[in-house]
Structures are given as structure tokens and as C-alpha cells.
């Protein structure tokens, strides 16, 4: 009898614990599983949402809902006049999370910052290859190994980055997910125990939420970090319910099984908007879709031919057919929400007659060309095949015969960057850090020819401007350089800029304080939920 009573009491206690733990829980129906929990190893937003934006902090952070930078665990910083030295003053008293698997004995200091970056950029660092195939893709992509000369500890709370060349977007880069700050003390403990791979499985940082458990492909659980340097979050628990199918995510949200869902199907948005219990947030994505001509191949080496082809394409029809109107026509290579966007520029107007005449004037007759259509759906282009078919029909009206080609995604990415590539490639870009350099130099700079510059376009005038902007720390001055660069871009037309898509984010009305992020990340610090 006593045993039964004890069992009943234990059951009741477990039940109470389960209920109380549920009281202030926000459930996010995430779109996929994280690849791991060390954000510096990966490039996917899904992984960042589950790791860097929950468990970790950075030296600087993007302001909630904006691409502006604000202090993170660094409370201030100074830049040397030559733009080569960045000295960060760290906040005092920033605590790492206490978990079942690690109890920190000290607060965050310069050693943690140095460890977090050196492991990514130094090939001989003991943590550089701590998991098989670690390639630190983002740090490499942002050029950190070549850019950073050294990282020095000035004192416990001061750390200095010395660069090999001035790099104005450097501060913005430090707000990115790969720049998350790890605990060196935790890493040392894992080394001593021979469990280094755990760093990628059981995260530990100074972020707003403490990792509790991960059930692969199903659920990730976090609890509010009571020691968070900005104060404990309003919600007690954060749960990621991994739900890969967008239609199922929508059903779960409507049924109240989750409170926030990313990436709804375009076709479901109207129904979600009609639900009285939901709010559908929307924002212009920090992205652009484009058709890049190979400007090194005739007749696309002539700007007048490229401009004529641009005029032949009805972009609004593409937006209506592919996005059901949920996108805006792109006229510049950067989105309108980005600083330095040049709104004075006029787009090449859709005018098939003028396009036909311009082609004739350029001596182009019976042109046959290829258009490459991506085999995958991306936020900036939901259905490239459909868009290509519409372009094919438009171009046929001006006497241009289009053959649509595609390749498997990895092959597509590789072959499309070939300098000798035939035809115009459809592709796009989503901004990493809100800096125009991340679009203009990354996608159109001379150094990117044969790489990210799918137009294989190297214009000295344009290149000089974006390089000058990179070496200037004054934002107003930089903006001027970028605005001038956009004028040259439009004049030369290496791309047909297609669209900037709208990003929808359906949220339960029980949720307050949740802000849609222009960088496409999903962060829950500041969010609250009505009980």
C-alpha cells in the first residue's frame, strides 16, 4: 500500500512538474533540423536559429528587427585611424550558462573571444579540425583567415583585432552567426575528457536561452537563461517543434500546437491571414533575384544588348505568376531596405517594341540564347522554371529564341560560375549582414569573376567605388560610393534584376514582443506569450 501511495505521489509530482513547466512556453514550428549546434561550422539559417540565436551571443549584435549594429558582449569598441586595429572592451560580469553538463567557474573574458575566432582561422589551432570535415565555411567566405592578422589580449576585458587591410564591413561581419562567442573553459574541459565533438552537440554560450535537450528531427528544448547579461527572458521555455512540411506547419499553427512558423506556402498565406487567432507579419526580404548575362560572351558583352533584353521581360508578370504578387520589382542589385539604396534610379521599363528596336540597332538578329533555371525553390525565387518560361515567351516576342536549361543544384552552382559559361543564369542572394558590400562587392566585384560574379562582369569604375567604400569607415561617405556604383550598374546592366520577395511570418496572437528580422533569422529574445 505504501509503495502504491509513493508511486501515486511520484506520478502526481511528475504531472505537476510537466504542467508547471508548460506555463510560459513558446513553441516555434521550425522548418528543419539543425545540422549541429556550433554555428561557426555551418551556413544554414535553420542551424543558426537553433544555435547562435538562442544559446550564443556575439561581440556586437544586430538590433532587433534591423540591420543596424549595437553592442553585444563588447560594450564598446574603437577603430584605429588607419582602419587596421579594432579594439573591443568587453562587458564585465557576463556569465556563461550553467547546465547539467557544465558549470562555469569564471565569467566571459578575452580568452573566450580569441578562442572563438582563432579556432576558425588558424589551421594549426587544436580545435580547427575538432570534428571531421570542419571547414569553417562562413569565416572562409568572409575572408577572415586572410583578413585577420592577429587577435591580441590587451587585458582580461580588452581584445584587439589587427587586420591586414582596412575592411569597413568588419564590425557588421562580427554580428553574424559564425562570430558567436564560445566558452574556452568548456572547450578545455571537453578536451581533457576527450569529448571534443560535444561542443557541436551540447552548446554552451552567453545567449538568452540555455540548451536543455535535442531529440533529432523532432524537438529542441531550451529554458530561459537566468544569468543572461540583458536580463532573464519573459518566457520560461522555448521549444522548437521541427516540422519540415509548410502545409503541416500551417495546420499546427492553426491548431495551436505552435505559436510561430516560418516560410508558409504562398498559397496558404490568405487562409492564415483570415484566421482570427493569427497575425501574419510581412516584410521585404533582404534579397534579390537576378538573371546574370555572361558579359564576356558576345553579344552579351554589349550593354545595349543587355538593356534591350531587360526591356523585353515583363517582371510584374513573373511576380504575379510565381509569387502571387508577394514580391516587388527589383531595379537595383541591393534591396530597398538596405542603407545606400539608390531610389533615384529608374528601371529599364518593360517595352517590347523599344526592346526590339534596340536589338536591331545593336545589330543583333535571330538571337538564340540559353536561360538557366535553378532546380530548387529559394526565398528570392520560388519557381525558377516558371519564371524562365515567362521570360522565354517575352523574349520570343522580340525575336529572341530561348532554350531553358537546368542542372542539379550543386552542379548548377558550380557550372554557372564558369567564365566560359553559355547563356544567362537565374540566381539570387540573401544578405548576410545588412551591409551593401555583401551584395555589391561579393556579387559584382572584379575579384568575384569566375566565382560569385555570375555575370563575369568587371567594370573598373564600379569596382573602384565598391573598393573605396570598403576602406572607409564613415557610413555617409560609404553610402555615396554605393549609390554611385548602383548608377553604373544600371547603365551597364550586367543583370536583369528581377525581384525582392516578401517574407511572411505567421504568429499566434498570444505572442507579443516578437519581431520579424530583416536578415531572415528567427530570434525569440524579447518575445512573450499570454498564458
Amino acid at each position, binding site marked *: 500500500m505504501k509503495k502504491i501511495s509513493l508511486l501515486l505521489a511520484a506520478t502526481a509530482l*511528475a504531472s505537476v512538474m510537466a504542467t508547471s513547466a508548460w506555463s510560459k512556453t513558446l513553441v516555434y514550428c521550425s522548418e528543419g533540423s539543425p545540422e549541429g549546434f556550433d554555428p561557426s561550422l555551418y551556413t544554414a539559417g535553420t542551424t543558426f536559429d537553433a544555435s547562435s540565436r538562442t544559446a550564443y551571443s556575439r561581440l556586437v549584435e544586430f538590433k532587433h528587427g534591423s540591420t543596424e549594429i549595437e553592442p553585444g558582449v563588447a560594450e564598446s569598441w574603437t577603430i584605429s585611424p588607419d582602419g587596421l586595429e579594432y579594439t573591443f572592451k568587453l562587458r564585465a560580469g557576463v556569465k556563461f550558462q550553467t547546465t547539467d553538463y557544465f558549470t562555469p567557474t569564471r565569467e566571459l573574458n578575452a580568452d573566450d573571444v580569441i578562442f572563438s575566432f582563432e579556432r576558425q582561422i588558424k589551421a594549426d589551432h587544436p580545435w580547427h579540425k575538432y570534428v571531421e570535415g570542419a571547414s569553417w565555411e562562413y569565416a572562409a567566405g568572409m575572408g577572415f583567415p586572410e583578413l585577420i592578422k592577429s587577435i591580441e589580449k590587451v587585458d582580461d576585458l580588452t581584445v584587439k583585432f589587427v587586420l591586414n587591410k582596412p575592411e569597413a564591413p568588419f564590425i557588421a561581419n562580427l554580428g553574424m552567426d559564425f562570430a558567436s562567442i564560445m566558452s574556452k573553459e568548456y572547450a578545455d574541459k571537453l578536451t581533457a575528457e576527450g569529448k571534443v565533438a560535444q561542443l557541436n552537440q551540447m552548446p554552451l554560450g552567453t545567449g538568452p536561452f540555455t540548451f536543455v535537450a535535442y531529440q533529432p528531427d523532432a524537438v529542441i528544448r531550451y529554458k530561459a537563461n537566468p544569468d543572461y547579461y540583458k536580463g532573464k527572458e519573459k518566457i520560461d521555455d522555448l521549444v522548437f517543434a*521541427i516540422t519540415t512540411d509548410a502545409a503541416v506547419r500551417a495546420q499546427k499553427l492553426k491548431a495551436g500546437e505552435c505559436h510561430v512558423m516560418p516560410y508558409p506556402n504562398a498559397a496558404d498565406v490568405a487562409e492564415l491571414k483570415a484566421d482570427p487567432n493569427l497575425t501574419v507579419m510581412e516584410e521585404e526580404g533582404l534579397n534579390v533575384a537576378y538573371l546574370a548575362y555572361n558579359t564576356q560572351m558576345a553579344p552579351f558583352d554589349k550593354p545595349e544588348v543587355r538593356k534591350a533584353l531587360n526591356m523585353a521581360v515583363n517582371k510584374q508578370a513573373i511576380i504575379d505568376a510565381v509569387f502571387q504578387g508577394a514580391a516587388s520589382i527589383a531595379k537595383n542589385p541591393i534591396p530597398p531596405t538596405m542603407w545606400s539604396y539608390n531610389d533615384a534610379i529608374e528601371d529599364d521599363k518593360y517595352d517590347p517594341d523599344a526592346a526590339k528596336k534596340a536589338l536591331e540597332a545593336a545589330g543583333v538578329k535571330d538571337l538564340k540564347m540559353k536561360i538557366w533555371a535553378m532546380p530548387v525553390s529559394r526565398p528570392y525565387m520560388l519557381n525558377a522554371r516558371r519564371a524562365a518560361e515567362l521570360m522565354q515567351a517575352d523574349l520570343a516576342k522580340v525575336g529572341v529564341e530561348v532554350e531553358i536549361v537546368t542542372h542539379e543544384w550543386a552542379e548548377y552552382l558550380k557550372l554557372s560560375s564558369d567564365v566560359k559559361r553559355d547563356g544567362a543564369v537565374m540566381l539570387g542572394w540573401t544578405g548576410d549582414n545588412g551591409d551593401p558590400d555583401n551584395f555589391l562587392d561579393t556579387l559584382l566585384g572584379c575579384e568575384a569573376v569566375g566565382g560569385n560574379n555570375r555575370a563575369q562582369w568587371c567594370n573598373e569604375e564600379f569596382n573602384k567605388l565598391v573598393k573605396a567604400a570598403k576602406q572607409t569607415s564613415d557610413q555617409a561617405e560609404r553610402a555615396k560610393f554605393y549609390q554611385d556604383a548602383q548608377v553604373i550598374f544600371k547603365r551597364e546592366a550586367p543583370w536583369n534584376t528581377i525581384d525582392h520577395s516578401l517574407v511572411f511570418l505567421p504568429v499566434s496572437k498570444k505572442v507579443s514582443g516578437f519581431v520579424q528580422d530583416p536578415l531572415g533569422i528567427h530570434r525569440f529574445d524579447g518575445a512573450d506569450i499570454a498564458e
Partner: protein
Amino acid sequence: MLRFFLGRLAILIPTFLGVSLIAFSFIRLLPGDPVMLMSGERVMSEERHAQIMHDLGLDRPMYVQYFDYLGNVLTGDLGTSIVSKRPVFDDFLSLFPATLELSICAIIVAMCLGIPAGVIAAVKRGTWFDQSIMGIALVGYSMPIFWWGLLLMIFFSGYLQWTPVSGRISLMYFFPPVTGFMLIDSLLSGQAGAFKSAVSYLILPTVVLATIPLAVIARQTRSAMLEVLGEDYVRTARSKGLSPWRVVGIHALRNALIPVITTIGLQVGVLLAGAILTETIFSWPGIGKWMVDAVFKRDYAVVQGGLLMIAGVIMLVNLAVDVTYGFINPRIRH
């Protein structure tokens, strides 16, 4: 019997080697490689690509990679996922119980409904019952799983709100996995309502996954029963004055079960294939979704290891089916 068993076991060795070779080469035949996909739209330089391929050992000749892989498999090492950086075997072990639990429930439902439906349809051949059952079976067999799953979800979870939408258990229950089988773990957790919640989450995926095997089993049982019911010994049993239930249940069914068991064995492969779609629809954290993701990301180690493990499971089930024949029909042993 032992000789029969060992004979069947010996066949598994070349099959296993064949599967390992197919699994190894299949994923490599696809264009693209995992390293190229690591950087997304951002282009990776050729030097860097070559360096990472070298680090992963993917630049070695194919035959070297294969024998290296085979050697590791024989020592129980299925490799490390290129994406998650976790050992493939660990991932498989943590995900497979979910697939197994769903598949077992589905096959039990399919057998419990399919065999009686087939038997009754055979006994009542030509009646409205027979025609209805076979009509429904044909519809069930032809139903695209993805569409069927979404339809049931929208109706039962969305409209009627009788069942939860997706997942394995309500998120309010949280306990560490012991066996990986949610029904068992929820009971072991001692949390009130956990088992009931786990059952409610299992209903729709089970119905969806069971649909095709149920239809196949019902049709196979009917046709096997019809054949057996026309045999002389059944007529003899009837003329001896045995009750119709005894004739059908003991004399006819036992012999009719041989092709039915073959069918059930073959359905294991169908179940695992169906599980891929069912798991995707119902966010069921099993190996189906894991494998699909791995194919898209060209995660060689996961695709190879996963295929090998799935093939192993199917081979073992077929071995069990072969052995079961031996018991049901001793002539097969010889």
C-alpha cells in the same frame, strides 16, 4: 531445420556485399558533391574545394574509398555524417526506433484488418461485401500517400480536432528516451496522460502507413483463400460435417497463409519506403526523413550507412519469413 536456416543465412552475405556496393556507388552517381553544397550560393574556390575533398578522403580512387568503407563497416563503423559530424550509427540508432514503432503498428493494423477482410471476402465471394472490400482495397492501394496523409490531417486534426497534427507526443511531456519507442517510454516515464498522448499522435500516421499493406494483404488473402477453398481436402472436411468456421479457420486458412506471409514479408520494404513520406507529413522523427535529407545534401556516409542498415533489416525480416514458412509448411524445409 538448422541446415535450412544456415543455408538462408549464407545467402545474406553476397546480398549484403551487393547492397554495400550499390549504396556506395548510387549516391556517387548523382551529380554534385557534398563539399559544393556546403557553401550554398556562395562559390567555393577550386583550391578550397580540393582541400576539403582531400580532408574528407573523397579525392582518393573510388575502389580505395569503397574497400576502406567496407573495412570500416565490417568493424562496425558506418562513418561520420559530413553534415551533422555525428557518427552515422549513433544517428541511426536514435532515429530507427521511431520508424520501427510506426512500422510495427502499421503492419499490425494491416494484418488485423486485412486478413479477416480477405477471408470473409473469399467466403462470401461475389456478394456486395466481397465487392465492397475489394473496391476499397483497390482505392487504398492506389492512394498517393502524401495526398492521403494531408487529407486525413486536414479533416481529423484540422476540422474535427480529434487527433494532433504532427509529432510523437505532446510537447508538454518531456522525458529522456529509454527504449526510443514512445509508447514504452511514455509508460516508463510515469507522467500522467503521456501514454494516451503518445497513442493519439500515433493514430493518423499508422492509418496512413497501413493503408497500402492493408489493401495488399486483403487482396492476397482473398485470392489465396479462394484457391484453397476449392481444394479436395476442404471439400472432404466439409463432407465430414465439420463446422464452416473449423473448415475455414483451421484447414483452409493455415494453407492460405503461406503466400500471405510472403506478402507480409515483402511489405516490410514497402513500409519503410512509405515511412519516408509518412514521416515527412507527420514530422515523425524516423530514418525516412533523415535519409531524404542526406540524399539532397549528398551526405555520402549517411546514405551509404542508412541504406545498408535498412537493407539489413529487410534481409533479416525476410529470413524470419523464410523460417516461418518452414514451421507452417514442413515440406519447404526440404
